[in-house]
């Protein structure tokens, strides 16, 4: 049975929860069992925030991801906090625009992009999350990605659809 | 020819109130008001905890018994469920001015379209005469045996004045039932409060200065005298708020 545990973390406002919701919708569209669990509470008010996403062939047991297969971090405090939790053989996706140090772990794969820098240079301010996801989902069918994005973006913000797609494509190309 | 009759809204159940208690008078005034407005069939009363806890036995319409102090919240639920009903609470000073201050303040602030009949007799009656938030400075009660000491217990709460500061409150009047003259004024005020609700004008409260001969340790006639001499100066009668004017 295949199960992928994602943990996404960063500052509030960096789109961590949205990125997780997008991953969960993508899993749903691909016929998987999924769960999305945010950290909630005071840390949502401008502090660090994270969310757990589980995508599985079986019904999801605990939605709490304590040992992620994939860790995506957008700031240094998140790398400091979660680096050690990654399963051996797992992958860390990190935005090196704000994280200067390299991961210490040698038993995990590291994908490092200057996502925020790319975003601001390409008119996608605030979409570093989607650039990293674009890299993560490089092998995923575009039709699924399009559908998942439509499901994830609220009806009031459909104007953001094209820009998000652009950011995903940008990440894929890096 | 019948020249005097019991209001149809009152039941035949003998009331349990002490000799000289003014609850019976206020019950009658409420019954008369409801009869005269022809709203008996759509009226829901909300009963308090206090001496009037059994008020639902004395009226001929639907009633909901509330927990101590919560009558305005319960009335809100009923009124919001069926806005065409006429909903009133009947509460004493322990119920409304002590444990139920949050509920009454916010029902008034929301301009909840209900009517409140508030009995102020400056004492907890049913529990045996303890000090109420409305007990007067120096008043002797079971729990202020040396007289209400304002240094330790603070000052009485003037509910009508307090609630009239709220923009939400529609009609607030303080009346008394300590004399025939006052009873007539009280009857007019209570009827007006129900009319107010019937016309959809919002929150109305009638504070009724009442007596408690038993717990005051006075004869019924002395109790009426005591209320007029001691309570009326502290709790002046009159209209405190009338959005119509």
């Amino acid at each position: 049975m295949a199960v992928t545990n994602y943990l996404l973390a960063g500052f509030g406002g960096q789109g961590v929860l949205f990125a997780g919701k997008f991953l969960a919708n993508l899993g749903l569209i691909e016929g998987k069992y999924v769960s999305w669990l945010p950290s909630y509470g005071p840390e949502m008010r401008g502090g660090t925030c994270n969310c757990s996403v589980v995508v599985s062939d079986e019904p999801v047991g605990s939605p709490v991801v304590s040992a992620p297969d994939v860790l995506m971090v957008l700031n240094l405090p998140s790398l400091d906090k979660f680096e050690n939790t990654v399963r051996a053989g797992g992958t860390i996706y990190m935005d090196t625009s704000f994280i200067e140090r390299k991961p210490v772990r040698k038993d995990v794969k590291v994908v490092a992009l200057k996502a925020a820098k790319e975003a601001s240079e390409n008119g996608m301010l605030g979409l570093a999350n989607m650039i990293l996801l674009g890299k993560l989902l490089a092998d995923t069918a575009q039709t699924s990605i399009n559908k998942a994005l439509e499901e994830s973006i609220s009806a009031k913000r459909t104007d953001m659809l094209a820009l998000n797609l652009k950011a995903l494509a940008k990440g894929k190309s890096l | 020819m019948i020249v005097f009759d019991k209001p149809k809204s009152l039941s035949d159940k003998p009331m349990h109130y002490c000799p000289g208690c003014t609850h019976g008078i206020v019950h009658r005034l409420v019954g008369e008001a409801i009869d005269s407005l022809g709203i008996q069939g759509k009226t829901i009363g909300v009963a308090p905890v206090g001496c009037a806890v059994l008020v639902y036995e004395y009226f001929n319409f639907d009633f909901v018994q509330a927990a101590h102090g919560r009558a305005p919240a319960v009335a809100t639920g009923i009124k919001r469920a069926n806005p065409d009903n006429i909903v009133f609470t009947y509460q004493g000073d322990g119920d409304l001015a002590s444990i139920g201050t949050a509920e009454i303040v916010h029902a008034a602030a929301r301009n909840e379209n209900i009517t409140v009949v508030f009995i102020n007799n400056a004492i907890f009656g049913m529990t045996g005469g303890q000090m109420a938030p409305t007990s007067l400075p120096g008043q002797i009660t079971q729990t202020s045996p040396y007289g209400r000491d304002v240094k330790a217990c603070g000052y009485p709460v003037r509910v009508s004045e307090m609630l009239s500061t709220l923009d939400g409150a529609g009609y607030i009047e303080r009346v008394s039932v300590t004399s025939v003259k006052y009873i007539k004024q009280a009857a007019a005020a209570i009827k007006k409060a129900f009319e107010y609700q019937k016309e959809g004008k919002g929150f109305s409260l009638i504070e009724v200065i009442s007596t408690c001969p038993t717990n005051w340790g006075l004869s019924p006639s002395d109790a009426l005298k005591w209320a007029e001499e001691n309570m009326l100066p502290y709790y002046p009668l009159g209209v405190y708020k009338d959005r119509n004017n």
Partner: protein
Amino acid sequence: MKKVLMKGNEAVAEAAIMAGCRHYFGYPITPQNEIGAYMSARMPKIGGVFLQAESEISAINMVYGAAGAGKRVMTSSSSPGISLKTEGISYLCGADLPCVIVNIQRGGPGLGTIQPSQADYFQCVKGGGHGDYKTIVFAPSSVQEMADLAVEGFSAAEKYRMPVMILSDGTLGQMMEPVALKYPAPKLPTSDWAATGTQGKRKPNVINSLFLLCEQLESAVVSRFERYKTVVQNETRVEEYQTEDADICIVAFGISARVGRGAVNLARAQGLKVGLIRPITLWPFPSSTIEKAAQKVKAFLTVECSMGQMVEDVRLATAGKKPVHFFGKAGGTIPSPEQVLAEIIKIGGVK
């Protein structure tokens, strides 16, 4: 039917609306605020009532009023707020009024944390308020089940004229899962006992929990407990997972049952015969299922997000026939399947 991602808090709110609930009274408290927000957005559009009360105490009393007026009504809160509502819950039970109360539990006692917990089991299952009474307590363990049990909650509440508590927690309230919300059109109750005005056509209805004579109260309570017997017969619900050949049986509800299910899978992968009993109703408690299991298994392991509350009911059901172990986490933390597996191995589940 197409599934969409929804938070537990949103799903329970939408399901209530689909069940015909048009009256919601609440007060803000984390982690259940999405319920109030959802209701405040939806109710005005469908002719319903959303009212943010001045306190949880007022909110439950507004529920009491609307239920007394014969309406399908709901409130929601989280642990400290449920403490405040217990007065009203006692009155609702005393007056035989139906309603649905959602508790998105957080850690306690006191202000505690806002993180998920199951430490309100005693409070919600055993009463909490004063007097002899029961409430039906549903314990969903998924977002879909939060919605489904809300719909069924209204039916059960009205059928037995008693409050139904949806005992959930911060995880289930906050998490999103795919759900399909599809329910038959609700049949709204016709409550001839409700306080709706006599219209001059019937004797007054009185909604009341007060009795002056102890004999009268006794007979009312006894007849209520007769009704509770039918609830036990008809409404007890439980799910079993891999219990047929189990040596060790985990007993867990809600979020802990999901962890327990994960632990069963881990244990089975190692060849350990472990199963899971998941009570879906906490009252009535599925004692007979546990009693039956006690004849076959070697031991039970109760897993809870508390210091151990439901474990007492498991012990009562097993009546000392088999050992009942406990593993729990307090303060808003959730055990991991690996921790539960370690506990299984510790109590003798070694091959």
